[in-house]
Each structure stands twice: as C-alpha cells, then as structure tokens.
C-alpha cells in the first residue's frame, strides 16, 4: 500500500536505468544520507563512532572491494587483507615522504599502489581458472605480510615496526575527533560506493558478470578477457587499499601488518558470503553482521547466570557460532542477507496483499 509503484512510469531509458526507480526508495535514500551525515554526528557518542560505525563503514568498503573481484567478476581471492595492508602502508609512506600531500590524495595514491600489487598477483588469472587461483592470492597474502615486516623501510625504520597514523585533516579542518574520523570515513565510503554502483551497472560490470558466468562464451562475443579480469583486480585492489588506509588511520590509529593477516582475509570473505555475492547492499549488511555479532553474542551470554560461561570461552563460542552461521547461510540462503532484504521488499510492494 505504501510501497507500491502505481503511477510511477519511466518514460525515458535514463529513468529506467536509475538504481532507485521508486520514488519511495529515493526519498528513503535521501533520508538515510541525511541521518548519516547530519543526524548521527549530533546524536551519536564516541563509543558508537569509534567502535561500531567506523569499523562497520570500513569493512563495508573492504567487502565491496572483494565483492567486485569475487562476486561480480568471479575471481576467487584470499588476499584481501594483504591489499588492505599495502594501501595502509603506501598511504602512510606518501604522507610521510611527500610533505604537504593532501590526505585524500595520499589515500588515492595508496589505493593506486594496492591496485598495482593486486594486478601483479592477478596476472595468473589469465592462465589459471577457478579454485586454483586461490594460490595466487594466498601467495600475495603471505608474501605481503612478510615483506612489510621484513623491510623496515616501509615502517620508516621504527624500532617496533608499529607506527602511529598521521594527523587527519582536510583543507585545514581537523578530523581527529571521533566525529571527525566518522565523517571522513563516511564521506569516502559513500563516494566510493556511488562509483562502485555505477561500475557494476555499466558495461564493465556486465562484462565482469559475463566472465564470471561463462568466460568462453564471453570471449566468443568479443569481450577482452585480459582487460576485464585485470581491471577487476585493479579496481578491487584500489578499494581494498583505501579501506586498509581508513582502517589504519581512522579506526586503529596505528599502521602495522599484524591486523592484516589471513584471518582478516577470511573475515572479508565471510562478509560478502553472508551479505551476498554480487550485491552492493550486501556489503553493508554483511559488515553490520560481522561488527554487531560479537556484541550481540556477549550481551546474550551476559543474560545467562554468571559463571556458566567464562570469559575465555566467549571467543571460542563466537568462533563456533560464526562458523556454524556461515554453513547455515550457505545451505539455506546462498545469496545472503541481500536476498532476504530483496524478498522483504518484494513482499512490501504488494502489502497488505500477499501476491
């Protein structure tokens, strides 16, 4: 009743191509953006910014990066965290060695370096298909973390290998407060998501999905496999690199290889599986799940009589519940939370009727 599309027609192709064809959707999006940019800074507290919203946003971006490569272009990758690490360290080094470089430019360059590294480890995808490709990104994962620790040039020869992130400011506006970091992250993430949305609906996005679904047929139609696959690696690497820079700068406050290990790569893969492969919204849903799940679980456990489950076991329980949920998702809803949302919307469109 409220959500139906009666009376809303597209009269030009451009209208039909819009992401949000329903007026209700467009209003909803505007409201959400207003809430995010204006409302939350007013209402939120520091804990929410630092511990929930910022990691949520950054992980969504990382998820989108991996989704472009794996969900849309069909190239398996377990090296996401490595590309994030490259982005973080590259951005740090640009800030350090190019005095006066604007923050956003440094991040873009950091993303660019990550893109190059991703392309390097993506070259084998031209010869190797499917599951075997995992080895290339695994090699990237292990090699990059080794190289970043081994060659202290990357960390500016600091004794402990751990460096603090530089001060954040854009055009003189200091963004180091939790609110400031939140707004910076939000701005970057929203812009990159807008770009990403355009990309997946463009020719390139279609070519990616063609290569994913059947690359021999794609070649027969004239799609350049080389360019399509390498662009997927490059753009994915860029997104992951920027996400890595944000992770280090706005979330952690330090730049170190430790948090970019294989477990992080798995975490990002889980985000896109749970959220939905080949979906834009899914990245947000998956990241929200990953960020909120531990919080929910500990709150749930806190309701049990004290001492039944000791603190140490929390982590193990979390691990088990997590793995179990992955399996459940894969069995029950392989297209992830995004599909659940889509089904909900479709039912809302005909509500209060059933079909």
């Amino acid at each position, binding site marked *: 009743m409220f959500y139906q599309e009666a009376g809303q027609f597209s009269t*030009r*192709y*451009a209208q*039909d*191509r819009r992401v949000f064809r329903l007026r209700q959707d467009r209003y909803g999006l505007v409201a959400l953006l207003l809430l995010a940019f204006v409302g939350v800074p007013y209402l939120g507290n520091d804990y929410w910014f630092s511990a929930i919203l910022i990691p949520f946003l950054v992980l969504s971006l990382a998820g989108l990066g991996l989704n472009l490569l794996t969900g849309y272009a069909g190239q398996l990758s377990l090296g996401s965290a490595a590309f994030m690490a490259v982005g973080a360290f590259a951005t740090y080094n640009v800030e350090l060695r190019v005095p006066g470089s604007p923050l956003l430019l440094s991040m873009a360059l950091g993303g660019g370096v990550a893109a190059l590294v991703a392309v390097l480890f993506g070259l084998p995808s031209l010869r190797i298909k499917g599951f075997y490709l995992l080895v290339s990104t695994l090699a990237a994962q292990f090699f990059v973390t080794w190289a970043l620790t081994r060659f202290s040039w990357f960390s500016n020869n600091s004794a402990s290998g751990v460096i603090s992130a530089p001060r954040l400011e854009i055009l003189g506006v200091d963004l180091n407060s939790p609110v400031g970091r939140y707004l910076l992250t939000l701005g970057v993430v929203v812009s990159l998501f807008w*770009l990403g949305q*355009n*990309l997946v609906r*463009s*020719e*390139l996005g*279609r*070519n990616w*999905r*063609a290569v*994913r*679904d*059947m690359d*021999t*047929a*794609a*070649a*027969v*139609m*004239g*799609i*350049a*496999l080389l360019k399509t696959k390498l*662009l997927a690696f490059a753009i994915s690497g860029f997104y992951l690199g920027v996400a890595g820079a944000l992770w280090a700068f706005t979330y952690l406050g330090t730049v170190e290889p430790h948090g970019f290990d294989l477990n992080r790569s798995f975490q990002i893969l889980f985000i896109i599986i749970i959220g939905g492969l*080949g979906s834009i919204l899914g990245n947000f849903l998956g990241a929200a799940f990953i960020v909120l799940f531990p919080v929910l679980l500990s709150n749930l456990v806190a309701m049990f009589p004290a001492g039944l489950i000791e603190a140490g076991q929390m982590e193990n329980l979390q691990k088990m519940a997590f793995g179990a949920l992955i399996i459940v998702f894969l069995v029950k809803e392989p297209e992830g939370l995004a599909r659940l949302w889509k089904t909900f919307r479709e039912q809302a469109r005909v509500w209060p009727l059933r079909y």
Partner: protein
Amino acid sequence: MTQTQATQVEPLLVLDNIGVSFKGVKAVTDISFAVATGEICALIGPNGAGKSSLLNVINGVYQAQQGRIRFAGQEHRRMRPQEMAVRGIARTFQNIALFKGMSVLDNVLTGRTLKRHSSWIEQALRIGRAGGEDDRQREAAERVIDFLHLQPWRDTLVGKLPYGLQKRVELARALAAEPRLLLLDEPMAGMNAEEKQQMSRFIVDINRELGTTVVLIEHDIGVVMGISDHVVVLDYGRKIGDGPPDEVRQNPEVIAAYLGTRH
C-alpha cells in the same frame, strides 16, 4: 538471391581442406565448402560427424591443424574468438551458453559489447560519452528483443526461463552484435513442433530482413530442407554431400549415411 547471382560475388566464408584432431583423434578431415553471402547454409550429419567442431573452428574456439579459412576476403587459420567477433561472426551454442546470473536484457546488452566506445572510467563517473551511448545500446537491444518477441521476459533472470526461451535469448544475444555471419549450433534441439516452427520463422526473418548469412547445425531434416539454400553433409568427419537441398536429398551416399545400406 538466385544461384547465379550468388556465385558471381565472392563467398562470405570459404573453408579449404580443413582438418581438426584432438590428441590424435581426427574430428574432421579435408573439409572444403563455401558459403555465399546472404544464404542459409545447413550443416547436417549423424551425431559425432564433426559438425560442432567445424563451427568451433570457423569462429576460432578450436584451431585447425590443417587447411585455411577465408572470411570476408581475409584468410586465417589461427584466430582467437574475440578477433572473429570483431570481424563480424556471432554464434549460439549447443548447450546454452547464456550468462545465467543476468537478466534477458543484460544478456542481450552484452552482445552489444563491441559497439561500445566509452571507457570504463567515463561510465563509472557517468560523464562524457557514457550516457548517450547507454541509451543507444538500450535502443538497439530493445530492437532485437522486439524482433524475437522477448519483451515480457526482459527483466527475468535467464536461469529461470524455460529451455525454449533460453535458446531464443541466446539467439537474441548473438543478433545484438549485428553480425555478418551467424553460426547456430542446433538452435532447435529439444523443442516441440510449434517451437521449431517459430524458431524457423525467426531464422528466416533474420536472413531475409537483416541480410545476415546463417550457418546452422540441425538434425531435423524437415526444417533443414524447408529453410536452407545450401546443405553440407558430414559423416565420420568427412564431407559426403554439398549443394542445394533437393540435390543433397537424392544423393545415395547421404541416404546411406542416414538410413544405412543393404549389405
């Protein structure tokens, strides 16, 4: 187009002594024939005769070990499928090779990929040539969808469509590229009589209205005799018949291959 007219103009496709083998097993040997521009040429023969392999060679998916191919006046023996697509060959596959994760419209739009000129950056930022081009490509895709009566399923995921419709979508996708030569690998496999009639009409329309040259592999002899201008018969990898349908129909070797001989 009469026979005399066709032979005066250079044929669109010429196969000369083509031989293909896989690890020692000869799929086709010494195949030579010519396809005139604007004709419908049918490749027929019992299963395993090498018809699909031949089609794959024409469009570069397989490389011939012997012989030469001449397409649109240019000769080649080893070509990659992408290059053949650029030169104007499109095809459908025996086991539907649609992009199952995309809608009908998206599949047809992928067929237009070679007609695009804007770069991915322009498209990502929605600037420059991207917008106008999007409209033009959509228009072209809609024309093809109209031509093949696929409008009701425009936004449906192809994986959800029935088999007959999927075959039609594959045809639409191939057609969207505005090819000079259309290769159809068993376009009517698995269809009932009514669907076959419909598909035959589409193929004839494509040939007559759009002027596209068609080479098709087909098992239904009735269809073949009804719509083709030229028939080539293969058996055990060799050519045993080549000519207009009526001539081939009476060829004793062809009859023997299909019906068996009296020993």
